[in-house]
């Protein structure tokens, strides 16, 4: 599967168009990208520049109009949606701008979800440990609507890291939080990443957050360029 290779994620000629051939709009234009194992990459860019679309394609949540993505050395275009899902299970973590916790489930159950999908053993204990790591050991049974925004995003962090993924995608993780809470969440995210050596692809429009990554890329008009420090 190439799990041991140095490149964990590779995109070549990645293109995404919407609409017809004449009236269509090119959102991503022949993107090429390689992310080595253990690296933290930030994708910067204004709203509507195609950052989230890029993230979705890199994670195999959607199919590109042209080009290909290799995840853990496996070409995504060769897989159907179930195949792509199976490839992600337990190996790819996500942190979203809008937290995306399942409303009816408790904090603990939310964290257990990806562990169960990856068929891990000792699911509850692992989930509990992950929540304790983000300082929510006392709020295991709370439902999302009983938690603050910052707490919800910490649950999401615990959920993302609990299966110990090799690759983490984060989409504007502080976008729905105030400055201080956002900074605390980001601190925790980078702590966890460094502890485990997780590869990170982080989409943000916050230069300060981006500066904490090893490499910064800029999305502009559907094109990706290396950002100058």
């Amino acid at each position, binding site marked *: 599967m190439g799990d041991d290779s140095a490149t964990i994620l590779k995109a070549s000629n990645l293109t995404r168009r919407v609409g017809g051939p004449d009236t269509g709009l090119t959102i991503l234009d022949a993107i090429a990208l390689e992310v080595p194992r253990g690296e933290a990459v930030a994708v910067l860019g204004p709203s509507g520049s195609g950052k989230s679309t890029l993230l979705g394609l890199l994670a195999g*949540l959607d199919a590109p109009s042209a080009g290909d993505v290799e995840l853990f050395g496996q070409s995504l275009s060769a897989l159907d949606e179930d195949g792509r*899902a199976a490839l992600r299970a337990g190996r790819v973590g996500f942190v979203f701008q809008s937290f995306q916790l399942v409303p009816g489930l408790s904090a603990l159950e939310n964290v257990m979800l990806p562990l*169960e999908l990856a068929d891990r053993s000792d699911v509850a204990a692992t989930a509990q440990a992950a929540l304790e790591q983000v300082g929510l050991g006392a709020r295991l049974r709370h439902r999302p609507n009983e938690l603050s925004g910052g707490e919800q995003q910490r649950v999401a962090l615990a959920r993302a890291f609990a299966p110990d993924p090799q690759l983490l995608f984060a989409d504007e993780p502080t976008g729905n939080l105030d400055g201080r809470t956002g900074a605390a969440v980001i601190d925790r995210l980078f702590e966890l990443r460094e502890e485990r050596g997780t590869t990170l692809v982080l989409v943000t429009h916050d230069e300060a957050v981006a500066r904490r990554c090893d490499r910064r890329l800029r999305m502009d008009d559907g094109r990706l360029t290396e950002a100058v420090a």
Partner: protein
Amino acid sequence: MKAAGFALRALPRDLRSREMRVLAMALAVAVGALTAVGFFTDRVDRAMGQRATTLIGADLVLESDDPIPAEWDERARGEGLQTSGFVTFPTVAATEAGSELTSVKAVGTDYPLRGEVLLSGSPYGEERPARGIPEPGTAWLDPRLFARLDVELGDRIQVGERDLRIAASIAQEPDRSGSLFQLAPRLMFNRADLESTGLISEASRFDDHLLVAGNPDSLERFRAWIDANARPGLEVQGVENARPEMRAALERARAFLGLAAIMAVILAGAAVAVAAHSLAAREADASALLRCFGAHQRLVVTTLLLRLSVIGVLASAVGIGIGWLAQNGLVTLVGAWFGDALPPPSLRPVGVGFAAGLITLVGFGLVPVMRIRRVPVMRVLQHSATTPEPSALAALGLAVAALAVLVFYQASDPALARWILLGTLGMLLVLGLAAAGLVRLVGRLRGRAVSGWRFGLANLARRPRTSTVQMVGFGLGLLALLLLAVVRVDVLEAWRNDVPPDAPNQFMVNVQPDDVEAVKARLRDAGIEPAGFYPMIRGRLRAINDDEIDPEAFAEGRARRLVEREFNLSWAERHRPENEIVAGEWWSDPAERERPALSVEEGIADVLGVETGDRLTFDVAGDEVTGEVTNLRRVQWDSFKVNFFVLTTPDMLDGAPATWITSYYAPPDSRSAVDALVREFPGVTVLNVEQILEQVRSIIRQGTRAVEYVFIFTVLAGIVVLVAAVQASRDERRVEIALLRTLGASRGRVRSILGAEFLALGALAGLIAASGAALTGWAVTDRVLNLPYHFNPWLFVLGVGGGGLGIALAGLLATRPLLGERPLAVLRRG
């Protein structure tokens, strides 16, 4: 396994979820309605089976023109069965005043094994059940014989060589068949006296009967033994159907109950569909998230289906519980049909209830809920990524298939089931098209509206699909309520009028042609208006076309009995409007009446395999008469009016020996006048049908109440549909309201916008529903029940007015909490 774990964990959440609750309520109502009717009809069927045995006086009757061997009786007893018996033969009974041909029945101990003989102290007097059989040396007489032989209770009567004392007048014999006109008056005495009459010898003609009753297994064994050892001339009579009049009324009651239950199921199905659609929308985020975390599509779908199944099974169980409780209510209402005790129901309705719950859930919910498969995983990053709508055709197709299964099972009458299905499909199609048309129309008109109306109507037109679905939902709910409020009353009223208070309760037969005018006059003097006098001529069917009738060629049962007996023929010039012509044409033209033509009742035509154009030959008093069948008639047997299986043109039976028959309503105080008339014209026979009439009436009376009771489920289902339809747009409205509030609209303004939208939605749905209700009322009354339909303009007043106001009120109430939410919080959540 994993899916089961997920489903189980979701259970507490599902029990709190609004969509699941609506879905569960709808299912419980549907299953409740079906099982209530199921349990009840199951009990009625069992009672009918038991009751039918009273019509032959036993569970099994063996009839033979030779003496029945004692060995058979012993065999039956050996099986643990009860036995009795009687011998019948015609003989002349005599008194000083004269003699009369009678039909003797010499009964053995324990007769009858099922049902009872009713007696009275004087002819047509107050009835009481007989205790045992006639004492040796006594006789019970048909009431007709009292006048003909000029005797009273205590007088003596000569039967063969034996002299018997008259002990009672027979009011009812359980095993006397429906063909009352053909029997000579009954004379019943103890079988122990038979030998002393000297009437039974090797050469004499008589029928011996062995009555058998007991548990079904033993009966079956005994019957098998009899079938193996039977000899020619033996007729085995099992349980037969109840009287045609009773059967007609019961069948109608059953059709009504079934219709009411099916209506509840259709409405509940609509609620299930709407709730499942909302559920899929609500589950879209969680489903996309699971897929994002690496879940297989199959796992996501299986989990949701398992959750639905759990809710389905729980809701069905609740529904069955409700059905069980509700059927007790039904039994209380109609228990008197069968005395006080109905047998307990079998467990079958429980199985049927679970199956019906599952079929309703799958049929109406599967397609809407399966759109979860098509949720784009990108939704986790881009909330605007929407799920494609399910195929309306697939949804409708599956719903119709599910409905077909339920309707065919429930109605067990393909014609009725077809009507219900076509009606529902047509109704949904009309509702959908009308709603879509009205939504478009509203879109065009909104420019001319003012203030809140402009926004409200714009809201309707902006979401054509949601508005159409909601309007159909509201339309269905309102339709149910209108059907109950107006059409039900009209239909049930029509049914009640089916047997009016002055329906004939007596038949008078055997009136001689010369006496007709005098009898008419006597009846009028007694305050009785006869429902018409008709000639009656006996004739035996000899041939159909050129084929001579061979009774053996007809299947045992009704067809063979018909061809073995004499028919009562009659002639008529004019067609009676209450008899509908279902094939061919009546001889309205005087020229047509000159050729020999026949009009045959459709049921008997079916049994004998006769169609228009066939020629029937009858033997009438030794002469053969042949006529062509020019039309088939539908006869309403429960009208208690005189009707004939076969009518001819007047000329065809010219000169044949006829007696006349009439039916009339005799008020209780005219009994003595009728009695006097019978004494003046001793040849005349009066048959009292008061008891059957009262039975039919009580079935209708209690059946009406039972149907109204079952309709409670339909009302509940209608309300669930309304709730589901309001709830379906709740999430969407939440964001809209927050936006309007953010843009500066006051609460009052938002309320007026919502009010206008709901008012328009309700009024338009009411308009569609009223039209639908009028159509359904007509279809049910005219097509299913064969009763006349009257249009009720109140439908439209109630539909449009009540629908508009009701939905506006319900909608405002349902969205009231949304007005109080902080706009920012709502908009952030998206």
